[in-house]
Structures are given as structure tokens and as C-alpha cells.
């Protein structure tokens, strides 16, 4: 079975949701149906297109009657509406995928023992995709996920969802620091070295703090402080105004390496005087990582004079 199959196609789920929406009482007239269709459809946003799709004979699951354009189903057996729903089921591949993830201690830890064991039982007749024997990661570090931090991850997730501030102690290479009344923004996971970090925002000194979860302790959720911060907007302000501007030297696979190294940043690319250029907008708190990424690329990239980090890179190159 192809992964790009008709049961994951927009049309299939749209029709299912239209059927279920009707029986769940989401709409009774044509106008309401259009509104509902627009709401559930995250693919098509065009009004005319929605009308066209709804007018398509394939979606004539319903009769449209009277002046109010009341919708009623063509297929009807009894008055028990709940029995007419189209069931929502996982595909075999989705089940195989879940079964495969259950072989990973981290997935099991995130789910907890009870749920993991329950799923083991439910999926016992399903094949595993056997990722562990097939995939080899060239830059993966030979270390296991630290499962001792799972309880802290769950605690921090709770504070994030409830938008409550937290206090904790952070142990760094240079000593212990107490963080008070900071807000969680998101977890940051680095798969290569299985490193869990948190990005937090301290409203007091308007600082973004990046901490390694295994190095934090004494986490306390400030239950009474429910006035959440819109951390997203605050983090956005930390994006650099002056981007990294690099000229790419086309040696070996450098073009692809450079573009892929920065593919999850906001970038702009252009071609000038037979050279490829890339501009990278990063966040202030990622500066050290970005600097190391540029250095790792060696002579594949040269910074432009008006680029961010130009002075830093220039002085490093000078003394090498």
C-alpha cells in the first residue's frame, strides 16, 4: 500500500467529516454545512472552491429541501443517529509505526508503563518496521536518552499548557543559578546527542534562557500565577535584525550542505555574479550554535562584510 493513498486524501476525510458532522448535529442547513466544511477543511480556503466541492455530485450524501435549504441524509436506516457515523480508524502503516516507536524506551517513557503495555497488547498482531536494524545515523552519539528527566518534562509541559510560571535551579559549568518566575516557551530536543533543553523567558530582565533539563532541579510551578505570557511574541523580538550573509563556494557538495545546514532557519537565497548567496535570520540566543555551524562549514562559505558575526569570524580566521 502506497503511503500516498486515497484514504489519506483530503476528499476522503472531508466526506467522512461531513457525514459525521451532520450526525453530530454540527449543521442542519446548507449554509451551516458550508460554514462547517470551511472550518474543518484546512486545505482549501477559497469560498468558490468550497461551493464547487459541495455541489459536486459525489458529496450529494444529503437531500437539500424546502426554502430553508434543510439538509437531510439520503442513506437512513433508523432514528438512532450515532449508528450512522463513519468510523475513524488508524491505517495499518500508522499502527506499524506506533508499534515500532514502542520499541524505543523514550516513547514508552513519554506514554507511561500502563499505556505502553496496553498498546503492546493491542498491536501484538501488527508487524514492526524495525527502525533500529535499518537506520544508521552517522552523527548520532552512542548514548541513551536520559529517562530520569521524564517526570520533569511532564511537569514542565503542564506549566506550559496552563501558562503558569516556574522557579528552578540551573547548574552550569560555572555554578548554580536560581531562575524565578520564568515562563516556558518550548522544549528543544537535539536528536544527535539526545539532549533535552528548555527555552524559557524571564519577563523581569526580558531574557531568553536556554537550559539543559538534566541540569535543572527543584522545579516549582507557581500555581497561583496563571497570568500567562505570550512568550511567542516575546521570543520573536529576539530575532536578529542583521542576518548572516554568506557567499557559497561551490566545492564538493557544499551548496547542498550549506542550504541543508540552515534549512530550518528563516533564510533568503539569491544568485549574483555567478555566486550563490544565503541570508540567515537566527535568534540572539542561538548565536554560539550559528557561529559553530559557520566554522564547521570551513571554506565552503565566506561571510559578506555587512553580515552578522563578520567581525567574530574574521578575527578567528586571522589567528588560525
Amino acid at each position, binding site marked *: *500500500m502506497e*503511503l500516498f493513498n486515497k484514504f489519506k*486524501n483530503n476528499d*476522503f476525510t*472531508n*466526506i467522512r*467529516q461531513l*457525514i459525521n458532522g451532520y450526525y453530530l448535529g454540527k449543521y442542519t442547513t446548507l449554509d451551516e454545512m458550508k460554514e462547517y466544511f470551511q472550518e474543518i477543511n484546512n*486545505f482549501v480556503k*477559497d469560498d468558490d472552491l468550497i461551493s464547487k466541492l459541495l455541489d459536486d455530485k459525489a*458529496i450529494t450524501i444529503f437531500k437539500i429541501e424546502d426554502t430553508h435549504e434543510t439538509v437531510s441524509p*439520503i442513506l437512513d436506516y433508523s432514528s438512532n443517529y450515532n*449508528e450512522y*457515523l*463513519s468510523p475513524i480508524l*488508524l*491505517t*495499518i502503516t500508522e*499502527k*506499524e*509505526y*506506533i508499534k515500532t516507536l514502542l520499541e524505543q524506551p523514550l*516513547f514508552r517513557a*513519554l*506514554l507511561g508503563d500502563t499505556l505502553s503495555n496496553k498498546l503492546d497488547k493491542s*498491536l501484538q498482531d501488527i*508487524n514492526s518496521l524495525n*527502525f533500529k536494524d535499518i*537506520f*544508521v*545515523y*552517522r*552523527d548520532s552519539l*552512542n548514548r541513551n536518552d536520559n529517562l530520569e528527566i521524564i517526570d520533569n518534562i511532564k511537569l514542565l*509541559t503542564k506549566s*506550559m*499548557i496552563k501558562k503558569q510560571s516556574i522557579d528552578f535551579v540551573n547548574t*552550569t559549568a*560555572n555554578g548554580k543559578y536560581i531562575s524565578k518566575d520564568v515562563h516556558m516557551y518550548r522544549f*528543544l530536543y537535539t536528536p*544527535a*546527542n539526545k539532549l533535552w533543553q528548555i527555552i524559557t523567558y524571564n519577563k523581569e530582565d526580558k531574557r531568553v534562557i536556554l537550559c539543559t533539563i538534566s541540569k535543572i532541579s527543584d522545579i516549582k510551578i507557581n500555581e497561583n500565577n496563571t497570568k500567562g505570557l505570550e512568550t511567542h511574541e516575546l521570543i520573536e523580538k529576539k530575532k536578529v535584525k542583521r542576518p548572516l550573509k554568506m557567499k557559497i563556494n561551490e566545492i564538493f557538495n557544499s551548496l*547542498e550542505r550549506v542550504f*541543508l*545546514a540552515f*534549512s*530550518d532557519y528563516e533564510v*533568503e*537565497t539569491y544568485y549574483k555574479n555567478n555566486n550563490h548567496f544565503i541570508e540567515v535570520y537566527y535568534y540572539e540566543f542561538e548565536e554560539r550554535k550559528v557561529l559553530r555551524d559557520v*566554522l*564547521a562549514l*570551513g*571554506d565552503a562559505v*565566506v561571510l559578506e562584510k555587512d553580515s552578522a558575526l563578520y567581525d567574530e569570524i*574574521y578575527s*578567528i*580566521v*586571522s*589567528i*588560525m
Partner: protein
Amino acid sequence: MAKTHTLTKKNLKDIKPLLLIMYIYGCYSQKDIESKIPEMTIKKYEKELTILKSIFERDVFNNESVKNKKRPKFSYDRYDNIANFLIKAYKIKNYTHDNMRIYNDILRILYFIDKNIKDIDLKINSPIDLLADTFDKDIFYNGDANKYLTIKNCLKELIDIGFVSYNEQNEKYSITYNFLDDLEKEEINSLMQGLYFFRGFSPLSSQSIFAIETLKEYSNFKKDYENIEDYVDVEDVYLFKDNHFNNILNDNDIYIIIQAINQNKMLEVEYIHNIKNETIITINKCIPLKIFTDYKYGRQYLLCFNEDKKTPTNIFINKINNIKIINTSFKKEDYSSTIELLNKSYSLNQLYDLKDPLKAEPILIEVIFDFNENVCKNLELNERVKLCENTKYTVELTKRQGKIEDISPTQFKYSIEILSPTEIIPYIRSFAPYGNVVESEYHNLKIKIDEDWSNLKKAYGII
């Protein structure tokens, strides 16, 4: 306005090459894209761009004119766009709407039978008859002379996808056991959260996304169905370093490779080469062994042996045009030495440059981290010690293997034994100016790295 037929007639195979190029490089002109996809004509290029614009939102697909030059490119910020927008490419494949309706009706009827097994009219003695009876009553199906065939074909597809089960003994079709029905709402949320996490970096992440969508729809459905209030939405809480969305476009090929490896079956691979601006397509039969990749750049390669069973090859999965399993088996044990080699080094190309890779001994590489006054100008001793500690901490967190030894408060040594030393060059370079590789008669890393710096000095006009 986007046209319905344009949107729905595309399928992933048609737009995958363009999507990959737009994601990885972006492009500047029709001429530029032509150099990467030779069969792309001006007319086709404009049409494809229009389609991409209609599928993807403006905030990720930048098609604005800059300095009179169009530079379409996918560009997103990992803090803004956590969800992999490229999944939309999976959903636009065209199917007739008629079938979509039939599948849903069959599922509904089977669901109805499951719920009302005792009340079903005894005159109708099989689910297929009941389905056929429904077909007769519904104007939508009116006149379908081949209704039994239509129903049976659709049932077969529903069995293949795993929605319907068939019991051969009593010839009974039924909805497949849905284990989600046995889960508490909190358990569905936990499962969803686990999948959200693995969505960011696991292979076949399309399946994670699809499973999340199924769970979300199921939760909404259960919520209304059982009037359960207070379903807590699982927030998008995870970010990932080096997140490469483009790999999702290879998932179909990856899934075929996984099946072939698990079943010990050979593959027939149609592969695109670009040699001197010419596109050549070759078709090879191969023995698939592993998929190797890296987190940093996200490139995925199939490690396989050619049909002659002698030459190991790496196939760049991005460049696969077509792939299928063929009915020829192989024994994994015959290739165990190659697999063993992969445990010693991840660069097969470099390993096979060695005369006898299986007998090769790992080479010791030593890197001295030195925070002396010359390198750390204007820093007091205590600041240099602090910098040394911080860097040691970073090496500890990021080193693949090897050990760290203190030399002095402002110096430490990192040693690693590796079969193919050049692999580690980018890592050492990233610690400039503090990390310097020690010269050795067993490798030429110092010369190579010094050469890079020398090239950079020229490029920056320092020498």
C-alpha cells in the same frame, strides 16, 4: 482563484522534484530550475509554481519578486512553523469523488451492522447483500449494474488499508478492531503527545503526522459522541535542532526500502544522475542493507550491493525516481562484514578507499583545546578558565565518542579513535580558534584543516 481540477490532479511523484529543489535551494529563474530539472519547460515551470502557491501558504512559500528577480523558495522559521507543511503534498493526489463516497458508505454500513447485529433483517443474509440493498435504495448508486463487483473491489482496498477485516470461515466482513475505543481520553492525549515528539525527527514522520490527525479527529468525534467535556488539547510543545522537513517527501520510497530489508527482498531502483548538465536515468537491481543518514544535514542514503553482489553502493534517496520490490531473496548473513564495518565508521566511501577495510585499525586523533592569552585576547585568567569549562561542557555534550582529559585550568585534550579521520574535520573546525588537532604520522588532518584556514584567509583578504 485556484481551479479544482488543477489542485486535485497532481500527485506527489509529479511535484516531488520541484518541491525538493524549492525546499533545499530555492530557484531564481526558469533557466536556473531547468539546470536542475532539464525536462522543465517555461510553461510547465509557471504552472507548477502556480500550483505550489495554491497549496502552500504565503508564510512558508516565498514567491515574491526581489530586485526584479523572482526567487521562489520555501522559507520558514523553526520557532514559527513546527508542523511539517510539506505533508500537504501527500493529500492532493487525485481520486474520483465517487469512490470516496463509496468507501465511507461501506464503512458506515459495516459499523451499523456491528452495532445492530441482532436487529438486521434476516432476509438479508450477508453484509454484501445489505450493501447491495443500500445501493438499490440510494439514488447516488442508482443504475450501478456492477454493484457487487464495485462493493467487493472497495472492500478489498479497505482490507488492504486495515479498516476492514474479513473472516474467511464465516465469510464475514467487519470493521477492524479499533483499539482507540479501549483508551481513556487521557491515554489518547498521551499517545498524541508521544507522536508529536517523534514527528520531529523519526523516520517516516508522515505516519506520525497521519496518526496524530486520526487521533485528533477521533477525539473530536468521541467528544461530541459521548458528550465528554474538557478534552485537553495537546499543545505543540517540542522544537528540534536540525529539523529537515524535506525528508518527508521520500517517505514512500523509504517505506518500500524498509519492507524490502525486513523481507530480505531485492529492489529495482530507477535512479537519476546529473552528469555535466545531462540527466541520465539508470535502473539497477540491488540488495538493500541499511539506510544511513545524519541529523545535521538530513541526507538519506540507501546502502546496498549491486546485483553482482560485489560492489557496495550508496544511493541518494532524493534521487530515486522509481522503486519497487522484486521477488528475489537474499541472505543478510552474506553481508554481515559490510554491516560490521558500518559500526566502525559511517563513511563507506572513505572506508573503501582503504586497502583492506576489514583489517583496518582505528586511528587516534587528539585535539588540544587551549585558552591561552594569545587566543583569548583581553580576557583575564578567571575568564579564560570559565571559557575553558564552558567549552569542555559543550564537547562533553556533543562528542560522538572519545575521552576528555584536563591538562591545566585553561587546557584540555579530547582524544578519539576512528577509522576514517576526515569525518571529524567539521567537528574540530567548529571549535576554532581553541581546538587544534595534534600532528600525527597516522593521519593528515592538520594539513587538511590548515589548508582550509589558509583558503579562508585568502577569501577574507587576510593574506
